[in-house]
C-alpha cells in the first residue's frame, strides 16, 4: 500500500483488515499443523515397533531323533502395550543329520493354523484348509502360498537355541510380521 498504487483503489483500513484476516488464517493453520503432526505420530507409533526375537532353548541335540520332527512347547512373555502376558508358543524341531538342525514356525503359511506332523504319511498337515507340507517344508497340496517358515537354529553350550519369529501370512514372500 505504498506509493505504487496511485489509483487509490486500496484504502488503508481495507488492507489492514485483509492483512489481519490473512495473518489469522496463517496462525490458525500453523497451530493446526503443530497439533496434527504430533497426533499423527502419536497414533501411528505403536505400529512402528518391531517385535523382539526371543532366543528359545529347545533342549540338547540328543533330545531329538534324526528324521523325526518334534514339537517343542514354550512360554513367551509378550509385552502388549502396558500389559505383560505369558503366551504359549511352539516350534517344530527336526534333526536332519547328527549336527544339522532345522526349526519350523508351526503356523501354516496360509492363514496361521498350527500344522501337525503325520508320521504315517511323513507330512505336515494343516487341519484348517488342508495344506500339506513335506518334511523339508515344501508345499505338496492345499492353499499355502509358500513353504513352512524356517527359523534360525544355533548350538550354544551344548544347547539348541531357536530364534523365534512370526511371519506375515497368506503371501508368497517370507516377510517378518
Amino acid at each position, binding site marked *: 500500500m505504498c506509493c505504487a498504487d496511485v489509483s487509490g483503489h486500496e484504502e488503508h483500513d481495507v488492507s489492514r483488515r485483509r492483512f489481519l484476516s490473512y495473518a489469522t488464517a496463517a496462525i490458525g493453520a500453523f497451530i493446526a499443523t503443530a*497439533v496434527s503432526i*504430533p*497426533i499423527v*505420530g*502419536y*497414533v*501411528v*507409533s*505403536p505400529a*512402528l*515397533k518391531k517385535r523382539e526375537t526371543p532366543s528359545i532353548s529347545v533342549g540338547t541335540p540328543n533330545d531329538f531323533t534324526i528324521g523325526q520332527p518334534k514339537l517343542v512347547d514354550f512360554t513367551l512373555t509378550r509385552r502388549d*502395550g*502396558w*500389559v505383560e502376558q505369558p503366551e504359549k508358543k511352539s516350534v517344530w524341531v527336526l534333526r536332519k543329520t547328527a549336527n544339522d538342525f532345522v526349526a519350523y514356525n508351526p503356523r501354516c503359511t496360509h492363514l496361521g493354523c498350527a500344522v501337525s506332523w503325520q508320521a504315517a504319511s511323513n507330512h505336515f498337515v494343516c487341519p484348517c484348509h488342508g495344506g500339506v507340507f513335506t518334511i523339508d517344508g515344501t508345499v505338496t497340496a492345499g492353499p499355502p502360498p509358500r513353504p513352512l517358515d524356517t527359523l534360525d537354529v544355533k548350538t550354544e553350550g551344548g544347547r539348541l537355541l531357536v530364534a523365534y519369529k512370526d511371519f506375515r501370512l497368506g503371501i508368497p514372500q517370507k516377510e517378518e510380521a
Partner: protein
Amino acid sequence: MQPMREPFGQQTRPSISERVIDSLDERLGVRSIWAALMDRHIPRSVNWWYTLGSATLFVFTLQVVTGIFLAAYYVPSPDHAYDSVQYIMNEVIFGQVVRGLHHWGASAMVVLVVAHMLRVIVMGAYKYPREFTWTAGVFLLLLTFGFGFTGYLLPWDEKAYWATTVGTNMAGTVPVVGGFILRVLRGGADLGAVTLARFFAFHVLLLPALIVPLVGLHLFMVVRIGISGAPDRAYEREQQARQRGYSGISGLPKRSGIPKR
C-alpha cells in the same frame, strides 16, 4: 453476487471456490452466517481482556482433541491406569506432547475461565441484556471444575489418589446428606475401581455431553447480542431508558445490546 457476463465469448467465469461458495450461499445462505459470525460490530472500547473468552474456547478445543487421543491408550482400571499413562509418556511418540498439552491445558482452562469471569464482572458485562449469557457461563465454570476434579484422578498415581480422597471427604462434610454424597461420588465407602470407572465415564462422556451444547448456547448468545463495551454512566442511563421504552413490545429489543460508540 453474480459477475456480469460478457456477451461474446470472453465470459469471466468465477473461480471454482467462488462457485462452490455461491452454490452453498444460494441453498444455505452461508454468506450471511459468515457475516453474522465474522463481520460483527465490536465496541471501540474493547481491549486484550476481551480475548479471554476466545482464549478459553481455544484451550477447550485443544482439550477435546488431546483428550480424544489420550483415550486411545488410557485404560480406566486400577491395574492398568497408571501403566497405560506411563506407556503414553515413555513409549508413544509425542505421547508427552499430547498428555502435556492436556495436563497444562486443564490448568489453563481454570485460569482463563476465572479471568474471563472477572473481566465480565469488572466490566459489568453480565447486565441486561446478557443475563442468560452470564448464567450459562456460571454453569460452564462449574462444568470446568467438574472436568478438573474428575480428570485429576485418572493418572491413578499417589497424588491423584490422595487428592480425590481429600476432595470426596470435603463433600462428605456437608450436613445431613454429606455421607451419602461421599458414597455416591466414590461408588461405595472406599475409593477404588468403581470410583475410577465412574470418574472416567463422567470425564469423557457425561461432562462433554453437557458442556458442548452449553458452550454452543453461550457462543450463540455472544454473537446474537454482541460484545458489550466498557461501562459508561451515560450509556447505562440510556440503556435503562431504552429498556423501559421497549417493555411491552414482544421480540428481542433491536440492537439493544450494542453500545452506541
